[in-house]
C-alpha cells in the first residue's frame, strides 16, 4: 500500500544572513503509513519542526519533495492539519467558535456546525465550556480545544509539533492518554514531534531518531511495546531496554549539539 506521507531526498537550507545559510535538513527520506503514529525524536535544532512545516505546506523544501498520497505538497495543505505548541487558538472566538472554524470554512450550515462541534468538544472532555474564550482556560484545556478544532476540520494527517511541551508533567500524562484514545477512535495518521524519549515510547508505533543539525535519520525504531501503555508497561523491563537503546542513539547527538554555538 502506498504511504500517506513521504519525504523523498528532502533538503532544506535556510538563509540566515547575507552570505550565511543553515542546512536544517539534509537529504531526508522516509514514509508514513496509514493510521501510523510516528514520533520524530531528536534534540532541539535537529530540523524536526522544519520537516513538519514542509508537510503542512508552510515552507517548501530546497530540494527533493514531500508527498501526500503521492502528490507533491506545494501549498498550505489543509489535509495535513497542524497542532501548534503555542495552541494558536483564535482569542476572539469561543471554544465553540474555534472548533467550528474548519466546518465554517467547508461551508456547513449553522446547525450542522453546532452538532459536529458538540461531538468533538465532548470527545476532548470540554462540555460546558463551549461559550468560554481561550484566555479563560488552562493550557491543557486550550490544547484540547486545538485538538477538537483540528479533528472537526477532519484532516487526513495530524501533525503535532511538541503539543504538550508547555504543559505540566501531570497534565501532559493525561493529554497523552487522551490523544491515544482519540487516535485509536479516529484512526488518523499522526506525526508527532517530541524531545522526550518517554513521550515517544508511550505514544508511538514507530520512532524516527534524528541526528543533530543537519537533520538526518539516525535510526528507525519499531515500538512494539504492548498497548495501552499504562504505568505497568512503563516500568517493565522491555520499556527500560527500549528506552536505553534510544538514549544511546541520542546521547552523542545531544552532546555534539550542545557544544556548537547557536545558529542565530
Amino acid at each position, binding site marked *: 500500500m502506498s504511504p500517506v506521507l513521504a519525504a523523498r531526498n528532502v533538503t532544506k537550507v535556510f538563509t540566515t544572513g547575507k552570505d550565511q545559510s543553515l542546512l536544517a535538513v539534509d537529504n531526508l527520506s522516509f514514509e508514513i503509513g496509514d493510521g501510523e503514529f510516528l514520533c520524530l525524536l531528536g534534540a532541539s535544532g535537529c530540523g524536526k519542526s522544519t520537516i513538519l512545516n514542509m508537510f503542512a505546506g508552510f515552507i517548501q523544501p530546497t530540494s527533493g519533495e514531500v508527498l501526500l498520497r503521492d502528490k507533491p505538497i506545494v501549498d498550505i495543505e*489543509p489535509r495535513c492539519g497542524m497542532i501548534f505548541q503555542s495552541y494558536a487558538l*483564535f*482569542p*476572539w472566538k469561543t471554544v465553540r467558535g474555534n472548533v467550528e*472554524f474548519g466546518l465554517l*470554512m467547508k461551508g456547513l450550515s449553522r446547525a450542522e456546525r453546532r452538532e459536529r462541534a458538540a461531538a468533538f468538544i465532548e470527545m476532548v472532555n470540554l462540555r460546558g465550556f463551549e461559550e468560554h*474564550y481561550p484566555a*479563560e482556560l488552562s493550557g491543557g484545556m486550550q490544547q484540547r480545544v486545538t485538538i477538537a478544532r483540528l479533528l472537526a476540520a477532519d484532516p487526513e494527517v495530524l501533525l503535532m509539533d511538541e503539543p504538550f511541551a508547555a504543559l505540566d508533567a501531570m497534565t501532559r500524562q493525561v493529554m497523552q492518554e487522551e490523544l491515544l484514545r482519540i487516535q485509536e477512535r479516529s484512526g488518523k495518521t499522526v506525526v508527532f514531534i517530541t524531545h522526550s524519549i518517554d513521550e515517544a515510547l508511550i505514544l508511538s508505533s514507530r520512532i524516527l531518531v534524528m541526528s543533530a543539525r543537519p537533520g538526518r535519520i539516525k535510526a528507525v525504531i519499531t515500538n512494539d511495546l504492548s498497548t495501552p501503555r499504562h504505568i505497568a508497561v512503563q516500568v517493565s523491563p522491555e520499556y527500560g531496554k527500549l528506552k536505553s537503546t534510544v538514549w544511546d542513539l541520542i546521547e552523542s547527538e545531544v552532546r555534539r549539539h550542545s557544544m556548537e554555538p547557536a545558529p542565530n
Partner: protein
Amino acid sequence: MSPVFLPKPGRVLGEGAASLASGQLLIDIWMSTQRVLLGFMLAGAVAIPLGIVMAVWAPAKAAVDPFVSLLRPLPSITWIPLTMLWLGIGEAQKIAIVFMGSWIYILLYTIESTKRVDPLLIRAARNLGARDLHVMLHVILPGALPGIIAGLKVTLAISWSCVLTAEMIAAQNGLGAVIWQGKDWGNLALVLVGMLCISIVVLLADKAAGVLERLMLPWERHTRN
C-alpha cells in the same frame, strides 16, 4: 486672589446655571459634539479601510506613504485658512478641521495593529482551510480590532481639541466659541464654564467609548487581567 484673575466658584456656577437655563449651553455642547462625531466618523470611515489595505498590500502602502509623511507634521490648525477659503466658516469647515486632525492617527494605528496580527494565527486559519477572504474576516480584522479601537479612543480626544481650535477662530456656537466670547467680553466665569464643559463632555465621551469597547471586544476582558 482677585476675582479679576480667577472668579469665585459661585460666580462660575451662577454663570453656568444661567447659560443652561437659557438653553444656549446645551446647544453649544451639542454643536461641538456633532462636529466632532461627524469629522471623527468620516476620518474613521476613510482611514480604517485604507489602513487595512495598506497593511496587507505593499503597493498601496508605497503609494500613500509619501502623502502621510507630508501631512503628518501639520497640526490641524494650519488647515484653517485653506478650509475657510474652500468651505467658508460653516459646519463643513469645522468637520474638515476635525477630519484633517484625526484621520492620520487612525490610519497609523490601523496599519500598526493590522501588521501585528499574529502570523501564526493566519497560518493556523489557512491550515484549517481558510482562503484569503476568510483570513481577512475571521483573523486579520478581529485581530486588529483591539488596536484600532485603542487608536480611536486616543484620536477622539485629539478630535475634540481640533473642533475647539476651529470654533475659537471662527464659529457662532460650540464650546470653543463660548470660551472665546467669554474672553472677548471679559467674562472669565463664562470661559471657565466652557472649560469645565469640555472636561466633562470629553470624560463622558471616553467613558462611552470604553463601554462600546467592552461590548465589541468581549474576549479582551479575560486577556487583559
